[in-house]
């Protein structure tokens, strides 16, 4: 999956194919009882397809693995933050987006935003931090990120939302792809058969034509810096994202 960026749908299909192989090789293993040492680092139960996924060589950090550490500017906070900034302090949700995306990215940002809103209403906002990283720093300036956040309903007053922005496309590749395994590639919008638009062939109605194919990933990372959930493919539905975050906070 790492050799080159894939559109989301293709990535999902490829993973599905690999899953069939994995199942054939591994059979129905009882992972819950396997005593995997990773289990000590996380409090959420393994994802439902965990036993199958362990056979995949996933490019991104997944359940039970440590979140990579890399420094990225947080332009709305005039500081450089590390992706492990909140280890020892808060649970973190990370995702990777570009703001002119109208297909899968709003769903990614929206999942974080739903959890943020829930963290505020259920009073665990101070136990969470949200770090969406743009991989399109050329377009996504600080102002664009702020306005995008406002459009998406992000609550900047909660003090737990940090947009991260690599300084240039080279840094974006190093941070997003090399460090987090989230491949992206700027391309032609005719490639856009991914999430959101279905098969109707509808193009984005945006007035600026920017298009990236990219792996879709949300990481829910616990306070110790271990991945509790890696949502790949379609974003989790809001209720799933909230339920997982609440469970993490409750069990911590």
């Amino acid at each position, binding site marked *: 999956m790492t050799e080159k960026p894939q559109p989301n749908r293709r990535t*999902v*299909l490829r*993973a*599905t194919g690999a*899953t*069939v192989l994995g199942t054939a090789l591994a059979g129905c293993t009882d992972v819950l009882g396997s005593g995997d040492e990773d289990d000590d680092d996380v409090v959420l139960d393994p*994802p*439902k*397809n*965990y036993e*199958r*996924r362990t056979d995949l060589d996933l490019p991104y950090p997944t359940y039970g693995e440590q979140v990579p550490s890399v420094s990225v500017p947080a332009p709305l906070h005039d500081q450089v933050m590390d992706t492990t900034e909140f280890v020892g302090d808060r649970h973190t949700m990370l995702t990777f987006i570009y703001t002119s995306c*109208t*297909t*899968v990215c*709003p*769903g990614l940002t*929206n999942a974080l*935003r*739903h959890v943020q*809103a*829930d963290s*505020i*209403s259920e009073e665990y906002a101070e136990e969470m931090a949200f770090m969406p990283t743009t991989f399109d720093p050329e377009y996504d300036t600080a102002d664009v990120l702020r306005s995008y956040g*406002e*459009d*998406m*309903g*992000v*609550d900047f007053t909660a003090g737990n939302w940090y947009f991260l922005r690599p300084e240039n496309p080279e840094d974006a590749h190093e941070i997003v792809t090399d460090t987090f395994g989230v491949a992206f590639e700027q391309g032609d919008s005719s490639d856009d058969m991914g*999430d*959101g*638009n*279905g*098969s*109707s062939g*509808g193009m*984005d*109605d*945006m007035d600026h034509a920017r298009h990236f194919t990219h792996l879709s990933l949300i990481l829910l990372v616990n306070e110790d810096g271990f991945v509790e*959930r*890696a*949502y*790949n*493919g*379609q*974003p*989790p*539905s*809001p*209720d*799933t994202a*909230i339920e997982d975050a609440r469970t993490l906070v409750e069990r911590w």
Partner: protein
Amino acid sequence: MRRRDVLAGLGSLAVLGGGAAVAFDAVGQSQGDIEPVDVETLDAPGSDAGTATVPERGRVTFVELFATWCTVCQSMMPRVAEVHDAVGDEVQFLSVTNEPLGNTVTREDVVEWWADHGGEWTVAADTNLELTQRLDASGVPYAVVFDEDNHIVWQHRGRTTTETLETKIREQL
């Protein structure tokens, strides 16, 4: 992690293989009947404040989940309006936002968005995400057609056409 992620394709196939003739346009969705859910309806053009039970038994139901931040939802509004003009009298017809309300986005914001984009039918809020959860709706817009027995007969995430929507609803009438 739910089956929608990696097993999405397989899951749908397996269910289709063993089940009724249900058409799915997207992957990873709930199937069959769902328990009706009460959603809060808003005082907006074409809509009265109150409660709606979705889906309504004994009647075909069309629901579109949306959010005010969603540009695709916005672009779908004229199409949904056309469909409403065509079949709105014959079915339970409503749009439901599942975004968090009350903090950065208020009910008033939704009503304003609704008026700005030509909404003229029932608009509601899935404030506790119950409907979203039962539909296993991973994104918006998310359109669902139920038959009279509350059975999901069609669902689609993302952009679609007026013709498709109208056809999927008319097939149940």
